C-alpha cells in the first residue's frame, strides 16, 4: 500500500513540477509568439500589395480594419484592399493573403503563406514565380490553372507540373476570392 501511495505522490509531484516549468516558459514566450505572428502576417500583406518589405512603414500606409469576424487591410493611397482567404489544399488547409484593387475587379497580388503541400511539388505555390502570375488577373472571368504546354488564355496561369491536385485546390481557392472581396 505504501509503495502505491508513494508512486501516486511521486507522479503528482513530478507532474506539478513539469507543468510549472512549462507554464513559466509559455508565459514568458507568449508575447513574442503573438508578435511573430502579427509581423509575419503584416509582411505577407506588404507583399500582396507589392510594397517594399519594410514593417516600419506599415501603419502609415495601411489601415487595419477589423469587422464582423474578419480583418481587412486598406491601402490608404489607392483604396486597394487585402484579406486572408483559406481553403482546403491537398494535405491541409491553404491560407493566402489576396490584394485586390479599389474597384475589386483585378488581383493586385497574392501570397500563399501557410500550407502543407508536398515540398518541391505542390509546395511550389509559395514560390515567387507562381504567385506573380496572379497579378493583374481579372476577377470577372474565371482564372484557370492550366498545365504548362496546354492552351492558356489571357486570364489563365500555369499550374505546377506533378502537382495536379494542389493546382486544382488553388483554382478553387482563387474562385472564392470573388465571394469574399
Amino acid at each position: 500500500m505504501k509503495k502505491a501511495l508513494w508512486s501516486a505522490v511521486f507522479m503528482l509531484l513530478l507532474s506539478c513540477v513539469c507543468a510549472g516549468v512549462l507554464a513559466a516558459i509559455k508565459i514568458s514566450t507568449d508575447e513574442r509568439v503573438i508578435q511573430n505572428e502579427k509581423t509575419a502576417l503584416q509582411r505577407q500583406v506588404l507583399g500582396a500589395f507589392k510594397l517594399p518589405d519594410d514593417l516600419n512603414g506599415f501603419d502609415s500606409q495601411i489601415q487595419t480594419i477589423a469587422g464582423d469576424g474578419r480583418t481587412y487591410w486598406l491601402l490608404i493611397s489607392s483604396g486597394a484592399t487585402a484579406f486572408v482567404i483559406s481553403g482546403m489544399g491537398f494535405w491541409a488547409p491553404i491560407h493566402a493573403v489576396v490584394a485586390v484593387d479599389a474597384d475589386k475587379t483585378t488581383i493586385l497580388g497574392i501570397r500563399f503563406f501557410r500550407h502543407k503541400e508536398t515540398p518541391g511539388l505542390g509546395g511550389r505555390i509559395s514560390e515567387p514565380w507562381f504567385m506573380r502570375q496572379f497579378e493583374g488577373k481579372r476577377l470577372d472571368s474565371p482564372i484557370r490553372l492550366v498545365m504548362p504546354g496546354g492552351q492558356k488564355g489571357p486570364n489563365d496561369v500555369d499550374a505546377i507540373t506533378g502537382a495536379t491536385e494542389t493546382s486544382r485546390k488553388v483554382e478553387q481557392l482563387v474562385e472564392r476570392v470573388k465571394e469574399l472581396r
Partner: protein
Amino acid sequence: MNGARDIFRNGILRQNSIYRQVLGICSTLAVTNLLANTLVMCVALVFVVSMSSLTVSLLRRVTPQRIRMMVQVMIISTYVIVVDLLLKAYLPDISEQLGPYVGLIITNCIIMGRAEAFAAKNKPWPAFLDGLAMGLGYTMVLMLIALVREPLGFGTIFGLAVLPESWTRWAVMAMAPGAFFMLGIVIWVMNLIDPPAKEQQS
C-alpha cells in the same frame, strides 16, 4: 564504469543509433530533405536526449520501479514541449515547416531506449554524456543524408543555390523514397567500413 572517451566512441560509432541500432529514425527522416530543418531537429533531439538522460539519472534513486516508464515519458515530453515553445518563439518559420515532427521526438526510440538502458542505471554525468554522444551520432548520419538529398532534390545547400537552374531536380530525393534509399546506402557503407562485432549483433 566507462570513461568519457569510451562513452563518446560508443555513442557515435560503435553503437550508433541509426546504422547500428536502427532506432529513432522515424521522427527525423522526414525532414532530411532540407539541411536547415535537419539541423534544427537534430539540435532539438540532442538537447532532449541529453537533458532527459540527465534528469532520469538524477531521479533514479527515488523513482518507484513500477512507474518508471511513465516517469521517463513525462520527463521526455516536458523537454520536448520546452523545445517546441522555444522554437515557436524564436524560429517560427522553421517551427512551421517542422510541423508535428518536433512533437514526435517524444516517441523517438533512442531517447526512451537510452533512458531505460543507461540513464536509469548510471550516474548523472555519464548519463548526460551518453545522451549527448547518442545524439551526436544521430546528427552525423542525418546531416549526411540531408547533404545528399537537398542538393539533388532542390539544387540548394542550406537554401543557397549550388547547382545551376538547368539542373533537373530529382523529385525522388525530395520525396519519401529518397530518404529510404539514402538510409540504406548509409547503413551499407558504414557496415562495410566498420563491421559490427559478433557480440554486438543482438
